[in-house]
């Protein structure tokens, strides 16, 4: 369970960090080639690259999640124990209630 949550958190962090970093890089001229652009193309390019980076992170997460083996079905042990206990109780309760119903009739 913890590996699932860890993957999710790492993917979420990348999803936030990548587009903000790309936008920051373009606006503060850190990325190479960003100084020569006029503001129209700068906005378009930085915006589209940021959106594409978010989608790339999503696609990577989908690939990672689909690869996990989900064939084993392991029910929660506490739930299983209480289910088995209720199964043992139920036949006794059925025997107790049926004679009372016959009396009422």
């Amino acid at each position, binding site marked *: 369970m913890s590996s699932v949550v860890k993957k999710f958190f790492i993917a979420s962090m990348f999803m936030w960090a990548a587009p903000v970093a790309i936008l920051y890089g373009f606006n503060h001229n850190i990325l190479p080639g960003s100084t020569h652009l006029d503001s129209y193309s700068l906005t378009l390019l930085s*915006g589209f690259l940021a959106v594409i980076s978010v989608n790339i992170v999503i696609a990577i997460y989908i690939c990672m999640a689909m690869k*996990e083996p*989900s064939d084993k079905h*392991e029910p929660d042990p506490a*739930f299983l124990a209480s289910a088995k206990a209720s199964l043992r109780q139920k036949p006794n309760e059925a025997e107790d209630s049926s004679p009372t119903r016959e009396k009422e009739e």
Partner: protein
Amino acid sequence: MPASSSAAMVGASSTWSRALMQISPYTFSALGIAIGIGVSALGAAWGILITGSSLIGAAVKAPRITSKNLISVIFCEAVAIYGVIVAIILQTKLESVPPSQLYAPESLRAGYAIFASGIVVGFANLACGLCVGIIGSSCALSDAQNSSLFVKILVIEIFGSALGLFGVIVGIIMSAQATWPSK
């Protein structure tokens, strides 16, 4: 009435249009940015609450579904991130203009472009977040019953998340042409 309409000055034929044109373009820009990020976050939160509650409930009896169905939560979160991206882009588009140019047509145009961009992104992301949330909740429930259904429902979810993408693309293109008059 004729006296007040003739007193309603230059370039305006009625008092309503004059009132609208006297609103500062910065008001419209600020509203656009606020609506863009605020309503996107609303859509993302709504989607995550719908899909998250179903996911946690279904995972009680079928814990294997959690790792794959977190994809729905990631799609909803992407919606919020689109709102953040557009808000950052829009606030870099805000520039100061000298007071004489504040109500020039080009200023008004820039203000309206930023406003429209924010509204487009906000409401597209609201719809997308809701859509992906409801699909994700059904996906979790059906995956718990029958794991072969997951991939088919994921295709529907990808179509749903394309709605937010359309809004972001149009919003970015609209905001790219928000140029304030320079002097």
